[in-house]
């Protein structure tokens, strides 16, 4: 099978797997234990925290290890539930369900959860500016959209919020879902002036079940208190082998980020050209568009074929693709909600296919994917 669903998950890299195995063997202790094995594990954990912080160019005190992106998002959003006076949360309408599912939860607790429209997949800083009120406590905005690859103008959006806060003296927590950015596109957390951000290891060849919450807001409260690990923000025994393997994968991803970006951009152009030649539609921004996008994700419409039919045809031809977001296929109709928020026509939404590319794909694979797309268009359109 040829894998073109890297946005859903990536397999753990050989070197990360080696680290995982080595750490599992070498550090059997619980970092919270006070005996030698426990202390050794604790030291190794803190060493890794420093290493990861330095890779991400942030302070080690802002790195909290979690189980992945969803948990990192959940810690930040669930923290609001403990607040005595409910306020307002602003969120782009194209966030991952890890964020959007909090709409109902927060509304039940009298919070206002406003989803901001994103025509074409972009949140206009002006829209944010208009939505800001003194009641706003948090803004959730993803960096790279997992369905179409659009990249938000975070700098400008953050600046709009910060200047509003300055004028009104009302602090607004800015949370960013950076799951599809880290290790793929340049993403400097420090220079963005955000308060928190979610990172997941299995999106950049790290292990499943490991992630990071970057956080500089000291008033956040934990989702699971447990034994008070991670400075009380994330209880539960730390996944030391997973964390160290994540560090290794992150190091590898960042070291080849530019080279990979170039290769993937080239692949994306090849596929985009084929898609258009085959008479299908491109839903992601076109190559060379002035708007920012990630080359790792290309969303197309295979109208008139419904997404799932196209997926089956391509699966039989040996290609793993995805309809919308893999996390949503269990709940019917949800996969298209992001596309709907992007104001994409209903027929295209029903026929939307996400092709996600990686530098590990070979050019031959991309060529055969293009051939298969062309062939399918000829046979079934």
């Amino acid at each position, binding site marked *: 099978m040829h894998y073109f669903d890297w946005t859903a998950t990536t397999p753990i890299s050989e070197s990360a797997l080696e680290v995982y195995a080595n750490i599992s063997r070498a550090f059997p202790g619980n970092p919270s234990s006070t005996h030698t094995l426990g202390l050794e594990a604790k030291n190794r954990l803190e060493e890794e925290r420093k290493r990861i912080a330095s890779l991400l160019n942030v302070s080690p005190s802002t790195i909290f290890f979690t189980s992945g992106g969803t948990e990192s998002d959940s810690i930040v959003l669930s923290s609001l539930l403990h607040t005595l006076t409910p306020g307002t949360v602003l969120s782009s309408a194209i966030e991952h369900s890890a964020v959007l599912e909090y709409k109902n939860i927060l509304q039940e607790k009298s919070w206002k959860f406003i989803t901001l429209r994103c025509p074409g997949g972009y949140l206009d800083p002006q829209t944010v500016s208009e939505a800001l009120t003194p009641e706003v406590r948090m803004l959730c905005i993803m960096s790279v959209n997992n369905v179409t690859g659009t990249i938000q103008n975070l700098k400008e959006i953050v600046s709009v919020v910060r200047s509003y806060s300055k004028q009104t003296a009302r602090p607004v927590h800015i949370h960013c879902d950076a799951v599809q950015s880290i290790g793929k596109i340049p993403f400097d957390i420090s220079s963005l002036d955000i308060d928190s951000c979610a990172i997941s290891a299995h999106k950049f060849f790290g292990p499943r079940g490991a992630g990071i919450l970057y956080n500089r807001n000291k008033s956040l409260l934990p989702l699971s208190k447990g034994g008070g690990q991670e400075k009380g923000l994330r209880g539960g025994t730390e996944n030391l082998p997973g964390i160290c393997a994540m560090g290794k994968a992150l190091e590898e991803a960042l070291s080849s980020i530019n080279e990979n970006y170039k290769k993937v951009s080239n692949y994306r152009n090849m596929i985009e050209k084929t898609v258009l030649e085959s008479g299908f539609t491109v839903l992601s921004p076109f190559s060379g568009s002035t708007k920012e996008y990630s080359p790792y994700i290309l969303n197309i419409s295979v109208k008139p074929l419904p997404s799932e*039919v196209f997926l*089956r045809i391509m699966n039989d031809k040996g290609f793993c693709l995805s309809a919308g977001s893999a996390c949503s296929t269990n709940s*019917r109709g949800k996969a298209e909600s992001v596309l709907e928020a992007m104001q994409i026509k209903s027929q295209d939404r029903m026929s939307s296919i996400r092709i996600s590319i990686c530098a590990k794909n070979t050019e031959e694979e991309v060529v055969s994917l293009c051939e298969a797309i062309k062939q399918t268009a000829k046979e079934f359109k």
Partner: protein
Amino acid sequence: MNNIENMQLYLIRLGEISLKGLNRRFFEKQMKANIKLKIHPYHSLIEREKGRIYLYVDSSCPEETVYNTLKTTFGIVGFSKAVVCEKNFDSVVDAAKSIIEKDPFSDGKGTFKVEARRADKSFEKNSYQIEAFLGGVVLDRFPEMKVDVHNPQKILYVEIRDSAYLYTTPVSGPSGLPVGTAGKGLLLLSGGIDSPVAGYRMASRGLRLDCLYFHAYPYTSEQALQKVKDLAMILARWNVGMTLFVVNFTQAELWIKDHSKEEEHTLMMRACMMKVANKVAQKRGCQVLVTGEALGQVASQTLEAMCFTNSMSEKPVLRPLVGMDKQEIIDTSRKIGTYETSILPFDDCCVIFSPKHPLVKPDTETETESFKEMNIEELLDKCVENIEEYQFSYRV
């Protein structure tokens, strides 16, 4: 009576079968065969005596297997697990003590009575004495229970005949008539809620069913096919086994799409399904077709549409749900255990074959002409030739 040592006894009550006249034996024979088949490989004996059916099952057979068998065998109105003991009062009391530890007495709540019948008048106690004493036994064990001789929720029966027989309020069976007594039908099974219920209802009238499913991969998924297989498997319990035929319908669907007007797609598809179903029914010796259509439920189930699809079938089409409300159908679906599978989100028809504005009041003559113009008969013959067959066990 045959050797019944080491066998557990169940008393079976018959409903409609008991109203039968000279052909009553025929129905009973089929029911016995169905029960024995479902309990196999465990040894079982079925006796008929004085209007009762006695089922003896090898005691190594799990009680659950017997219960599941009897609860899914049409013709049975109710059944009770009975305890047989020696004809002396102490043994009867011990047997009563053990039987009330089980359902329906085991929860120790509600009202009850003891009903004794003494065919052997030489027994040491009379019926009233037996009832009074055993009533005391129940109350000693379950002080919260109350005696109600007029409308009891639970009854402990005691019969003194060749031996002493004790049993409690019967567990309900599915009633109806034994599968296999009314001939054979072909059920058009989709993955939806209705068709399994239609199959259940016809099986409950004694019709033995085969199932037919139209698969249009890649336009319908493998999961949709799996869902239909799962439904056939559930129905197999009621139908005493099931054969599912899967027709590869992709080429036919594409042909219909290319050779008929958009608003006629669904009607032409139904017509083709009827044609294929008739051919399969003929091969399998099925006398009728069964569908899950309910009048007016969707565009293809209006009276006019049904008249048209009827005209495409030589075999009679039975539609047991035709006058049922959707909620009634859902309730039955839940009862027979198909609902959870039916609602899995794997469609049995792709949207690209479903017209936006289907014809709701088709004219049979016009549509018959349209069908002929499609010239699809040869393709449908091929569909039947390449049919796949799956067998599902009657094991419960």
